[in-house]
């Protein structure tokens, strides 16, 4: 009986170590792959996140296509903003065929002012839903700026890499609102993103591994 337990424990330890090594390898590998276009998974969210990420997308060329947007299922305002952004973009550049973008909806991982224990549960639940979505889209790059929804999405994207399905580049741009303190999503994804961008010098000082390019939204 004891030997079975020891064996199981040893097995679990081996799996954990393998996973850790795999995670390390995935986070390390940053060899650039030349490509014509790059599919983008953008995590939008209420409370200014959508506005800010759309300001960022304004400066991206059409090589970043198709664009997949993820919003919380109750967030009609973001859907409206994204549609109007994409319409404007298509109007400005008639050479592009119908704009290639999709809006996907998942449950909110955290309603504003939700308690912590229930946050853990709802996050697990949205993780359960995020992975199939991320797996279906298989984006080249995930771009997000901190809405709660982006944590399960980024973990799913990382999982695609760990499982050897696809190495997804994760770019986290901390909101311009964060002058001296990272957001909760930022604190988590600081360790899991390939590029972590901050927009104020005080944050760059606190987190030297982050990238500071000035104000980019």
């Amino acid at each position, binding site marked *: 009986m004891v030997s079975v337990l020891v064996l199981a424990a040893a097995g679990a330890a081996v799996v954990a170590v393998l996973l850790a090594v795999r995670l390390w390898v995935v986070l390390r590998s940053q060899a650039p792959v030349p490509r014509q276009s790059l599919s983008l998974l953008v995590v939008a969210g209420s409370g*200014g996140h959508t506005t800010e990420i759309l300001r960022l997308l304004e400066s991206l060329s059409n090589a970043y296509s198709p664009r997949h947007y993820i919003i919380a299922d109750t967030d009609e305002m973001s859907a409206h903003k994204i549609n109007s952004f994409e319409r404007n973009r298509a109007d400005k550049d008639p050479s592009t065929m119908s704009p290639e973008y999709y809006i996907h909806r998942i449950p909110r991982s955290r309603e504003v*002012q939700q308690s912590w224990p229930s946050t853990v549960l709802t996050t697990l639940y949205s993780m359960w839903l995020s992975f199939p979505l991320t797996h279906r889209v298989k984006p080249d790059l995930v771009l997000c700026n901190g809405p709660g929804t982006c944590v399960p999405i980024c973990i799913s994207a990382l999982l695609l890499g760990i499982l050897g399905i696809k190495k997804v580049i994760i770019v986290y741009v901390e*909101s311009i609102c964060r002058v001296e303190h990272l957001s909760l999503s930022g604190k988590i994804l600081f360790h899991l993103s390939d590029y972590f961008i901050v927009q104020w010098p005080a944050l760059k000082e606190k987190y030297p591994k982050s990238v500071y390019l000035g104000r980019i939204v």
Partner: protein
Amino acid sequence: MKCVFVTVGTTSFDDLIACVSAHDTLQIIKSLGYDRVILQIGRGKVVPEPFRTESFALDIYRYKDSLREDLQKADLVISHAGAGSCLETLEKGKPLVVVINEKLMNNHQLELAKQLHKDGHLFYCTCRVPTCTRRTSPLLLLLLRSAKILQRGQLPSHP
């Protein structure tokens, strides 16, 4: 024609709308030489009655696809602390007064307003309803100061 544009963003900020549309406030705005106030009130419950006289106009709406036009014609912008509104206003070089919504918990947007104030781009204050109709309201003092002191805002794109 000099115009004040008030914006609350996608949510609501009833205290601000109530404060700006109060009779005394409108008098002060008038005395500063403005003859038009446009309120963007989002999904707020405070809905002032629009009016138009010979010398003054108050317009009001909930949402527009883009605030660009209204920001463009404004000579002074009074805004909630949302990053989008702040950045868009300052990019247009408009004088900006930010009013912090104290009813929001963990209002991290305050950090941005404080920093932009420190860098000399805007004024900010809170909006307490009880003090609002008094002349000593922080918002009104800021309005007065901003009209006199605030130079055209400018926001460097890179440090």
